[in-house]
């Protein structure tokens, strides 16, 4: 079964003014779709033909890893947003964030800094480590923390294609906007 582009749970203009319809059209419709197409072209005849994306992320290298991980990363990223959801965590995740970072405000500050300072293309992640604690990590290009035994909770795409039409060189402005479209009900379920 070839991989397919998962449906978005909101309209492409639903995240405006924080992320424009134009950005979603390219980011989801072109970039995410291209990773799906590329992976489907790359895996026939390899040992990854029947593999899950998780297996590909843990075991593959080169183009199969890059495209497989980028499908997973983009799906996880787009699923984190909604036009109207709780903009702060609650329950167990809120407690865990407070335990690991002092407060939600401190966590936002550290996650923003990690996203803004990642040099080049890549992803900032909030992950749960094997010992249960939370940590913020940077991954270059298609990197995904599943490969290192971590559980992803939240990610921010800092490839320039994620924000260049809306914010150009101003990555900090994109990060500021990012917090206004996260749906913490969805994110909490991952924890």
């Amino acid at each position, binding site marked *: 079964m070839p991989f397919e582009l998962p449906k978005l749970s909101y309209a492409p203009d639903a995240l405006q003014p924080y992320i424009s319809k134009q950005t979603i059209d390219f980011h989801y419709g072109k970039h995410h779709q291209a990773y799906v197409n590329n992976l489907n072209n790359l895996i026939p005849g390899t040992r990854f033909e029947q593999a899950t994306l998780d297996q590909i992320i843990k075991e593959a290298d080169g183009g199969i890893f890059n495209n497989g991980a980028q499908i997973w990363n983009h799906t996880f990223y787009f699923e984190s947003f909604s036009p109207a959801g709780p903009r702060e965590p609650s329950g167990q995740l809120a407690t865990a964030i407070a335990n690991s970072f002092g407060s939600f405000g401190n966590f936002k500050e550290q996650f923003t800094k990690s996203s803004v300072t990642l040099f*080049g293309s890549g992803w900032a992640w909030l992950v749960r480590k094997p010992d249960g604690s939370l940590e913020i990590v940077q991954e270059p290009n298609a990197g995904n923390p599943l490969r290192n035994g971590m559980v992803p909770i939240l990610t921010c795409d800092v490839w320039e*294609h994620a924000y260049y039409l809306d914010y150009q*060189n101003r990555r900090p402005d994109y990060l500021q906007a990012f917090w206004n479209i996260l749906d913490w009900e969805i994110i909490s379920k991952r924890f």
Partner: protein
Amino acid sequence: MAFELPKLGYEYAALEPHIDARTMEIHYTKHHQAYINNLNNAIAGTDMENRTLAELMTGVSKLPVAVRNNGGGHFNHTLFWTVMTPNGGGLPKGDLLDAINRYFGSFDKFKEQFSNAGMTRFGSGWAWLIKAGDDLKITSTPNQDNPLMDLAETKGTPILGVDVWEHAYYLKYQNRRNEYLAAFWNVVNWEEAGRRFK
């Protein structure tokens, strides 16, 4: 001595329609300027202030990562602006054309391999034509690394470079990096590339 943004040899709109004025302006005044500011901050108060940019590049493996990233960014963009011109395109001349024919078979085969190096650089980076000893080679580097750096996988003197960070083409070409790389050939300054080859 603090590094400064070098003057552009042409107007922001001069490379239209291949590279649009808005991209040129943001790329030059924001991205390039930021690399210079960050580089100056990274070397301030150290003996790195007394070194040339080329000296920083060739010894970069022993320097802070901020010098690698921002010094590379300054070097690469400075080169990039000079290897483009509104009167560009066409064919290289003289020794450089001979060398390209000799090493790549033909100018078209060279273009194909160079574009391919740009297309297949995953993430941010640069594609290069370099002189390595007596050889001409095509290579690509991640992020703001370049072939002058002692940590580069393939080292040499850059003759031609193209920026494949998305900021170099996203406003005009979005996800179509292939179209940007095709357009690049219309603005290549072969005279400057020829000087760098000598």
